[in-house]
């Protein structure tokens, strides 16, 4: 069910004429120049504030119109996948969290899910709900940072400040529950590291109670900004079939009208227990991408509230001592607990040979982790199918034959995270 409804045409300086019409009505034919029909190659990045990291885009321009682009990546390639092969399974979690550094809970979840699949390990219901709460808060935080920096690229400065402020209050919640604002290593194989502290649920409720109003305000900031609207409306539309061919998932695909969302289609981690809608767009332009993400933040708030209401009692991590550390107090009284503790922190647990591919819905699309186990206590291969890496291929159809100013908008609305692209 679509939650995104197109608003009426925004008022324009010339009645009955859109910004695009005005722009194309300007006659440039008299600017005859010997170099006019030549192509110009322009290098954008890797140090360019609009590339959100170190993305380099080599653009071929004809006048002001982009004819072709070629993304060059790898500037922050740190070999995380290679390093993972040298670490015991539980020490890999903090490494994979640093890939897509805005959706760290999702990275850890995809990895833990793959290892749990290999181990055939059951995750307690309470841990599943705690994971959902943290992932949905993380989705909001990630979308807020996208809105803040994307708004900044488009000249909407105030969205930057207010979006950052809201994101910071979510990071405060993360700090309280897991001890870290980013990369908390909270998700463990078999559950989560610790139960939430008392008073945390109340603080989350305070946040979710006021957050929908904040989203409205943020949305109003964009919706009353004529310049931003003109740069987004009707620009960069790509149809859903082309996006599917390019492997694009997430808000970009949903903005084009395809309601594919793994949380609904193939529920994992108890997502089937919650009532929420999948926002879809109708046109597939930048404005739809913006609206879809705004609506997703509202839906995520609902999921967090439902998960808090229905949070089951019980264990927060599996009681299988072969894979999860025993509680600290058991070490003083139980020899088995001491042995398990020693084995886990020295060698780590062993995983039977096999291969698993575990997908989940990150803020940017299908984030999946492929793990190959060879029977030892270290993974033989860890691969992240990062949505930013795949979605980046959609940049070319988005910007081809548009103005170079629209390339900046496309980059902002694509929401690529270079840490995830380069890994």
């Amino acid at each position: 069910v679509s939650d995104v409804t197109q608003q009426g045409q925004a008022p324009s300086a010339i009645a009955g004429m859109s910004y695009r019409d005005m722009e194309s009505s300007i006659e440039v034919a008299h600017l005859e120049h010997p170099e006019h029909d030549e192509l110009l190659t322009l290098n954008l990045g890797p140090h360019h504030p609009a590339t959100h990291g170190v993305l380099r885009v080599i653009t071929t321009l004809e006048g002001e119109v982009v004819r072709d682009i070629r993304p060059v990546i790898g500037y922050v390639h740190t070999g995380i996948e290679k390093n993972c092969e040298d670490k015991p399974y539980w020490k890999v979690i903090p490494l994979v969290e640093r890939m897509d550094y805005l959706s760290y809970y999702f990275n850890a979840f995809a990895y833990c899910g793959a290892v749990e699949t290999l181990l055939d390990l059951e995750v307690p219901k309470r841990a599943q709900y705690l994971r959902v709460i943290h992932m949905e808060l993380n989705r909001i935080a990630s979308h807020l940072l996208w809105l803040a920096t994307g708004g900044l690229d488009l000249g909407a400065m105030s969205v930057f400040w207010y979006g950052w402020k809201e994101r910071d209050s979510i990071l405060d919640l993360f700090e309280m529950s897991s001890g870290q604002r980013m990369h908390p290593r909270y998700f463990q194989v078999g559950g989560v590291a610790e139960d939430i502290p008392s008073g945390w649920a109340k603080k989350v409720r305070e946040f979710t109670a006021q957050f929908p109003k904040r989203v409205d305000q943020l949305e109003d900031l964009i919706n009353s900004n004529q310049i931003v609207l003109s740069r987004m409306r009707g620009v960069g539309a790509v149809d859903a079939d082309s996006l599917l061919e390019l492997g694009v998932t997430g808000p970009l695909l949903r903005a084009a009208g395809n309601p594919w969302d793994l949380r609904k289609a193939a529920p994992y981690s108890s997502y089937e227990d919650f009532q929420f809608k999948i926002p879809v767009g109708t046109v597939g332009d930048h404005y739809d991408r913006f609206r879809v993400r705004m609506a997703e933040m509202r839906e995520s708030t609902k999921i967090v509230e439902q998960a808090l209401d229905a949070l089951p009692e019980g264990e927060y991590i599996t009681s299988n001592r072969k894979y999860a550390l025993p509680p600290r107090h058991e070490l003083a009284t139980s020899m088995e607990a001491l042995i398990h503790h020693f084995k886990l922190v020295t060698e780590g647990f062993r995983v039977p040979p096999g291969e698993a591919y575990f997908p989940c819905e990150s803020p940017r699309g299908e984030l999946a982790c492929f793990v190959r186990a060879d029977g030892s206590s270290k993974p033989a291969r860890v691969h992240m199918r990062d949505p930013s890496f795949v979605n980046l291929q959609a940049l070319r159809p988005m910007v081809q034959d548009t103005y170079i100013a629209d390339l900046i908008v496309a980059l902002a609305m694509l929401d690529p995270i270079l840490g995830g692209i380069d890994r």
Partner: protein
Amino acid sequence: MPDATGLELIAQELRDRDADSVLETLHFRGKASVTVAPESIRETLEHLRGKGFKFLASLHGVDYFPEEPRFGVQYELLDMYEVDRITVKLRVPLAAPTVPTVVDRWPTADHQEREVYDMFGVVFEGHPDMRRILMPEDYEGHPQRRDFPLGGEAILFTHNEPRNPGWWQQ
């Protein structure tokens, strides 16, 4: 997910088309996978597309060192209507690590095939732009191979120099 029977039916269809194409089928933890001969990968994916697996979710490489054939390439296919996944695997030896490209039929494979080439040295024949993607263009070796050593990467920053080079003063 196709269950074990469904997987065998798919494998039988693939065998009916080309008797040598299917090497192995595996149903592990509720997930179906079929190992095919490298030369038949394009026809296999095309056949599975006809069965509804229209979305190539991921393409990644694996190194099975010290087993031989050593390199694996895996294609994760997704059927968005039936919400069904199947993995197509293939293995190529170190002596001849070439796989036919699928990029003309599955444009999403462009960057991912380049990544597999970059990390494992598996060459995708027919790929329009078979270059490194994450490592520098002049890099030697394929770092995700299991026998590629970890660490010791020479990084050209001044603190790695034995003495202060002072090139900025010239």
